[in-house]
């Protein structure tokens, strides 16, 4: 930083660029390991069954066949699977945002009796593994005659304890002066919440939306349990059902997997920054 001989500076910058190259090499190897399965999935999905079994294997398909896609879309109703998955994510996001914002604001900014007790209910849900609720939740749905429906997919996500906790943390970090000024101006509690505070939590709401979407999408046990009609399944549950049918016909399985991968991948590529920043935010505050 201060006065250093030119030779030492040069040695240092040489060292820097060499270590930088090593870092890049390690990161590229890592990236290869992360991407390869997806590339292999896509390449295999365009090969014939015979070609996929060749040793040594071909890297690129000799001919880019689309018959695996025709076959898999004939057996699985992909339109319905896409629709159900998107509805599941969309409805869980809406519920999490609306109800958690309301409760998160109240817990952070309002004084009311039994606050600690109610907040304990929120925390206790976060401490318990989800699976402990699953059998009774299933029985309730069955009792309502709502198995095999979009509502069934949404059901455990109607409210979000994590969302409430997360947004409460965020509301707590907002200064009270804002709401105090609004109260002096004659705003009631709902107006303070809706007009003043809610708009300030946009980043947190985007983060919660991303978090909810990622976990709703990857949740497999619940959709598998409640919706066993193929037309009401989610992508993950739906393509898992083709394992039995095409046990070792990998090109078809890979075509199905590729189709299942596309919607979330597209969303991710479009909103990569929001995805990653959202996850970072839910992790650091949660």
């Amino acid at each position: 930083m201060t006065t250093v001989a030119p030779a030492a500076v040069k040695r240092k910058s040489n060292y820097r660029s060499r270590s930088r190259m090593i870092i890049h090499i390690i990161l590229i190897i890592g990236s290869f390991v992360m991407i390869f399965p997806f590339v292999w999935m896509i390449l295999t999905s365009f090969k014939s069954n015979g070609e996929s079994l060749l040793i040594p294997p071909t890297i690129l398909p000799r001919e880019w066949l689309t018959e695996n896609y025709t076959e898999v879309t004939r057996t699985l109703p992909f339109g319905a699977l896409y629709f159900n998955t998107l509805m599941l994510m969309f409805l869980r996001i809406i519920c999490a945002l609306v109800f958690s914002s309301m409760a998160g604001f109240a817990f952070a900014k309002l004084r009311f009796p039994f606050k600690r007790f109610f907040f304990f209910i929120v925390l206790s849900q976060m401490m318990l593994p989800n699976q402990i609720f699953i059998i009774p939740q299933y029985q309730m749905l069955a009792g309502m005659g709502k198995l095999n429906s979009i509502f069934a997919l949404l059901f455990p996500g109607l409210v979000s304890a994590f969302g409430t906790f997360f947004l409460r943390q965020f509301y707590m970090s907002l200064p009270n002066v804002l709401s105090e000024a609004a109260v002096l101006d004659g705003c009631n509690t709902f107006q303070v919440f809706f007009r003043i505070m809610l708009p300030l939590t946009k980043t947190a709401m985007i983060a919660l939306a991303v978090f909810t979407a990622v976990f709703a999408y990857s949740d497999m046990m619940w959709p598998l349990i409640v919706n066993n009609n193929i037309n009401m399944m989610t992508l993950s549950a739906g393509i898992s059902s083709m394992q039995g049918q095409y046990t070792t016909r990998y090109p078809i399985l890979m075509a199905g997997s590729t189709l299942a991968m596309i919607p979330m991948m597209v969303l991710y590529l479009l909103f990569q920054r929001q995805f990653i920043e959202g996850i970072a935010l839910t992790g650091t505050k949660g």
Partner: protein
Amino acid sequence: MTVLSKPAAPRLSRREHYDPKVVAAAFILIAPTIIGLCVLNIYPFFDTIRRSLYKTQGLGPEVYVGLKNFEKLFKDSMIGHATVNTLLYMLLTVPVGVLLSLIFAALLNSKIKGRDIYRGIYFLPMVVAPAAVAMVWRWIFNAENGILNIALKAIGIQGPSWLADPNTALLSCAIIGVWSAIGYDLVLILAGLQSISKSYYEAAEIDGANGIQSFFHITIPMVSPTLFFVVLMRAMTSLKQFDTIYLLINTRNPAYKNATVLMTLFYREAFEKFNKGYGSAIVIYTFVIIAIFTAIQFITEKKLVHYE
């Protein structure tokens, strides 16, 4: 955050006085969440405990059996295997996964070109349906035609049957687990690393510390709260692992005994054999194991984690 939430001076000390309008608003605002949590979580929690004391035969009536389900559970050799496998899966995935995430996060934390691209790539498995992940790995791990064994053969190694070999099945699942989770953990750790003030490193450099010394004496302690959170979350998730193992290790797999875990057993008992009572007992048993590990981690936290 600490500065802002200074509590308003209590006007009437001891006895709390509430503004009825505010209280009414607060109750309206929390009502959906609290009612929802009571119906969806609090009641089911107690109902699961109750069910674990009953025997259910398919759709038939429930019969009170006391602790019989738990007696059965402790005698059931599959539960024993699954418990060992679950703990082993945790030991195979958590330390390696968190360590790799830390290393890659530290590499990405340097001022390096294309950081966002690398981070984006590592995060990819998080946005792919677990069923698709399971399917492609089953293909890669295939004993005869899988690309992994073909590649190993090319360098003169005879690879095992991976997912179908009792010795490597759980390891293979753990590899998939680590691969899937690295991006998520990395994003959290990287966020932790980026919040460390540069001035610490500058001070260390002036004092003549090299990169490795600063890593161990500044980076690790400063990021330890994040690391603790990641380890805790990872340990809990690994003890609840379900999807990939359920899809890859079916009951006909020769390695079934060596790779089945508690949650897959729970699913099969409760929703394939419709033994809801026994399923409830298994899930409570798993919950106790998770609680024990969480407690252990909170005890060690005090010794290892540095808070500012």
